[in-house]
């Protein structure tokens, strides 16, 4: 019923944050989620594999920087997921 990729608290949080910010850096995502590098990378990889998020690598001087953004597919999936949640909650009342 629910998108299994989005139906997870951490992935939901990541996608929610990206839905209201044009791009977010890896550093900021790590700060906000409180995850380790390994864990965060895993969640981001699964979202990226499904085409829900996109990333861009750049350099600030010599420092590498990765920024993530929500794709159109990701945004549509998020909206659908949100609608399904609301319908589900309403049906339970």
């Amino acid at each position, binding site marked *: 019923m629910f998108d299994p990729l989005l139906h997870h608290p951490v992935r*939901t949080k990541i996608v*929610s944050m990206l839905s209201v910010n*044009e791009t*977010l*850096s890896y550093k*900021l995502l790590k700060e*906000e989620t409180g995850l380790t590098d390994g864990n965060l990378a895993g969640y981001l990889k699964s979202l990226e594999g499904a085409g829900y998020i996109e990333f861009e690598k750049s350099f600030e001087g010599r420092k590498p920087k990765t920024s993530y953004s929500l794709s159109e597919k990701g945004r549509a999936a998020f909206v659908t997921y949100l609608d399904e*949640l*609301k319908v*589900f909650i309403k049906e339970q009342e």
Partner: protein
Amino acid sequence: MDKEEALKQIETIKNAVINKGYVMPESPEHYFVWAVLSAIGITAGDWSEWFVARFSVSYELVLGVYFTIMLLVGFGASGWFFSKEMQKNDHACTPHLRALRTIYLSSIGFASILTVAMARFDAIVFIYGVWIFAIGFSMYVENAVSRRFFGEQGLILVAVSALYVLGGSFYLPSSPTDEHFCALNRVGETLSLIFISGMFAYLGARLLVKRRCDV
């Protein structure tokens, strides 16, 4: 899945969207720059005479040059301080930040143009109300978007500007003299120094203290 789980998910989404939707840089230096620039602009009536006499130019030209410099230096400095903050925190320039920048640039730019245009008329005394309104309204919009720490202070400035303009219009008789305009000018200048320059200096100091306490 049960209803509790679904509600938890909604809560997660709400918190992420509402609390983190508007990433805004903060810089105490930007406020101090504007405190100084605004104080110089507000007291232009006092120092501009020297330039008018020294260079044999009009008052409007002196004002026009000053406000051009003020806009370039002010927005240049703000842009530089904010980009440093954003780089430090790895934030990107959001559409909201760009819109806020446009709002401030438009309101301050328009107030500058109006000041120069009205420079040779006695009604220039009301320009202080325009400035206080422009800054106050922009601050109100900024706070509504970013939920910054200056709360409803923007609305206070809007109220002060309205009181100044209304009070001034009642104070001036149908045939006002230079003394009337001078008195109203002094009130306008004082209110502007308190509510514009003073406000910027206060916000900068408050942010500085907040940062020192967070360290």
